[in-house]
């Protein structure tokens, strides 16, 4: 079924919408959640939560790209679930490494600009602009790693690159992001 038809079902409050979504994007969303959680059971629950969130979001929303829309929900719900776990239970998927890497750009020993934090939506806009301005390959790698939390090895395979190459490109991009956030006043 086409995405527009599925969205129409949501808008008609037809329960087949969830069935069709699960049929078409179930595995995909499971993968997105699993990248963050590293646990199949948690990921399955996360996917079910995703369908519920989608049901609540449509209407009023009418996503232009259903796949990305669902990926965002699944990813964010998975991350919420990840954070909700106790520290001892963490360690699933590539998340630990991803957060360590992002810490280079974010954890500045208390030098965080409180005003910028307050304007969280501005930060999101800034990141969108930053990713949008990156060269295609860099932007793609950045999204695979820091949105989908994919393993370096998987990214390397997906783009037919060596892991070292991916690691180097991501490192440069993080430095760019840090500079970008600094210039934007998000960090000092």
């Amino acid at each position, binding site marked *: 079924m086409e995405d527009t038809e599925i969205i129409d079902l949501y808008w008609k409050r037809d329960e087949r919408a969830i069935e069709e979504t699960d049929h078409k994007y179930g595995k995909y969303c499971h993968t997105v959640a699993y990248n963050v959680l590293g646990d199949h059971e948690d990921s399955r629950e996360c996917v079910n939560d995703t369908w519920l969130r989608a049901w609540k979001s449509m209407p009023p929303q009418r*996503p*232009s*790209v259903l*796949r*990305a*829309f669902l*990926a*965002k929900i699944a*990813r*964010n719900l998975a*991350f919420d679930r990840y*954070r909700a776990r106790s520290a001892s239970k963490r360690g699933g998927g590539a998340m630990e490494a*991803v*957060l*360590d*890497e*992002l*810490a280079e*750009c*974010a*954890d*500045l020993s208390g030098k*965080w600009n409180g005003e*910028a*934090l307050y304007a*969280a939506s501005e*930060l*999101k806009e800034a*990141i*969108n602009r930053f*990713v*949008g301005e990156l060269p*295609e390959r860099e*932007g*793609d790698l950045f*999204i*695979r790693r*820091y*949105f989908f939390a994919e393993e370096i090895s998987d990214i390397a395979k*997906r*783009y*037919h690159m060596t892991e070292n190459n991916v690691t180097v490109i991501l490192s440069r991009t993080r430095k760019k992001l840090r500079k970008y956030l600094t210039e934007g006043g*998000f*960090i000092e």
Partner: protein
Amino acid sequence: MKAEDLFEAMGELDEELIARSERRVRSGTRRKREQNSLYRFAVIALSTAAAVFILLMARDLIGTRGTNGTKGSQLVSQEADGAQEENALVSEAAAEDADGEAEGSAADAGDRETEAGAVMQEEDRKNEAPEEAQSAEGTEADSGTKAAGNIAAEAGSPDGEKQAVDLMGDKKGDYVSLEYISAEDQAEGKSTTVPEYTPEGEEILSRAFDNGKPVPSLMAKTGDPVYYVFLTRENGKVDTITFYENTYVSMDNYPGVVMRISQADYEDVMTLFR
């Protein structure tokens, strides 16, 4: 700001950006798959072409060697046993009409005449037959060997091919008489005998020919292994045929004709000679 906050903020990336990235990934994978398919196809095509080429080459080589080997073994066999071996009947017809009476085989006969110089023999039957038979002996032996060589090529499908009697039946209208001399008699310098066919012989041969036509003057009997038969045409030309019993032969003068003299045929033909 903590890394987790940044990761959370990343979660609000524009859907279009995400979708664009995903599309690029998918198209890249598709391209790669297509390239792989193309590569696989090229490899398979080249491998197949190479295999076919090698097979053809091998077939040619094996075919050549196989044929040579068969011919060689035939020659060795023939030479070891002697060209005039028992239980063999080979025919060898010779000359074609000078007046164009001959069929499509004329060219072949002409070639053979040029090549061997003795396969086709034309002579006066009454006066020169013994000498002719004498001189023909060596030639016929060679021809027999040649014919035996052809056996190899033909032996695979003898059944259903023309039998000796059929061939004789086909050709009988071409001749007004037919003589015979055995190899032994010929070696001893004896004259050809000119036997008359018996009524029984004619009947048998007619039945064998399955056309009921009268048979021209026919050959005489012999128990010897090799039979030279001289068939005289109306214009006086004589075709010499060498018969070996129970073997398949192809007649050089009649391309494509394979004949086999079976024991039963032989018995039938022998009846004519009494």
